[in-house]
């Protein structure tokens, strides 16, 4: 899909974005690297995980390739944001890349990953509330400050923002519903609360943008309020779709909770939430230890 790219600087100092397919390179590397690793997995890697990862990569490619080639349009930017920050990360997270890495990497690498997963800083960063602030808060920062206008002028900032969308979206999806080991992941209530907060913030932001399309985002020289209004509607309903998918992934982890894989406990604990949490974190550390020793059975229960 080649689109007639407007001549450079047609938009008053707009970046000369010639046919730059350069951002697609990392996406191709991600897909190929994952496929090579999956093929090397001695225990056989679940094809559904591979499919989820490839769907994630395909969505990234659509956002960075065809959509990135379009001339400047708020709707195109919004579609890019939805794909990069919300839909593609969910596919990538469901691909369980860390689990795959732990399976095929040599022991030193596994030890490093295990240590990293136990690091306190990561637990803080990957807390659902932090991740929600980074992803929805970051978007608010872009739309409500002159950052949007600046990103239209500076290519590097533009790419950095895209990277931030993907990273924050990945962190959020992982913190909510990732099948990869996540020690100290908070309980269901906190994760549902974080999803609620992020989705509500996203919806409010979309309607706020719709209502103030004449002035937001600030600092633009030539603006088209109608285009921003339809971008805001796209953001609102696209956000719904992302929230729906995230909620399905989140509750599916609850539905496929690992109790059935353990021998049943004879007594019901008096404080279910607490015991649940402690067994969960216990399970996570056990998972990491298990990954350090090869020859174990499949441990990814969530689908």
């Amino acid at each position: 899909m080649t689109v007639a790219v407007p001549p450079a600087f047609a938009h008053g100092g707009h970046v000369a974005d010639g046919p730059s397919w350069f951002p697609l390179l990392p996406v191709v590397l991600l897909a190929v690297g994952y496929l090579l690793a999956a093929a090397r997995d001695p225990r056989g890697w679940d094809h559904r995980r591979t499919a989820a990862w490839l769907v994630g990569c395909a969505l990234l490619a659509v956002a960075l390739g065809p959509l990135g080639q379009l001339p400047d349009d708020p709707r195109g930017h919004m579609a890019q944001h939805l794909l990069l920050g919300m839909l593609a990360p969910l596919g990538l997270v469901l691909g369980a890349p860390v689990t795959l890495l732990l399976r095929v990497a040599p022991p030193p690498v596994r030890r490093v990953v295990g240590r990293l997963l136990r690091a306190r800083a990561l637990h803080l960063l990957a807390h659902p509330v932090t991740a929600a602030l980074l992803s929805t808060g970051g978007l608010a920062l872009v739309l409500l400050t002159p950052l949007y206008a600046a990103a239209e002028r500076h290519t590097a900032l533009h790419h950095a923002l895209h990277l931030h969308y993907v990273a924050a979206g990945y962190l959020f999806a992982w913190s909510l519903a990732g099948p990869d080991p996540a020690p100290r992941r908070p309980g269901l209530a906190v994760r549902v609360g974080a999803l609620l907060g992020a989705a509500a913030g996203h919806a409010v932001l979309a309607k706020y943008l719709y209502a103030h399309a004449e002035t937001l985002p600030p600092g633009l020289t030539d603006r088209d309020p109608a285009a921003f209004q339809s971008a805001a509607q796209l953001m609102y309903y696209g956000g719904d779709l992302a929230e729906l998918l995230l909620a399905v992934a989140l509750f599916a982890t609850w539905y496929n909770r690992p109790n059935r894989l353990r021998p049943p406990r004879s007594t019901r604990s008096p404080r279910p939430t607490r015991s649940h949490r402690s067994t969960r974190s216990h399970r996570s550390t056990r998972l990491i230890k298990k990954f350090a020793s090869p020859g174990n059975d499949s441990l990814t229960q969530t689908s």
Partner: protein
Amino acid sequence: MADSSLPSARTVPGAGAVDARSSTLVGVLIGIAIMAAVDEIVFHQLLAWHHFYDRSTPSVALLSDGLLHAAEVIILVGGFFWFADLRRRRALSTRLAWGGFLLGAGGFQVFDGVVDHKVLRLHQIRYGVHLLPYDVVWIASGAVLLLAGAGLLWWARSRRSGDGRR
């Protein structure tokens, strides 16, 4: 929520006892979410009677609207997973769930008609028409659903206590 400390039906003898409270509550949650989804799809999207955004909407109402909207999706998905879990454990009472469903759907309709449309004035049912008949139909239909749900729940509960089990 029905917590995961309850092991599944396969592993535990004596599972399969009907969980009346959860059955009712899961019905209420799904009822609320379905009614909200119907409102969103039929009145916002298909008929386009409701507006996406009203000029007059104050920002507090915008915030509450966003929260409610986000909660609806989560309740819908969570409700169905909880429902599936109850069924899997054979702890679901279908009658109670239906009663709860009607109660939730009617309750949401009344809440939407009274609080969202009239108190917060988020948006109206339709624009450029005389509103009173629309409001009356909206709220009355919600009240009928609400009463039907309450009646069904009352009937199901009295039957349960009558013959002991179910």
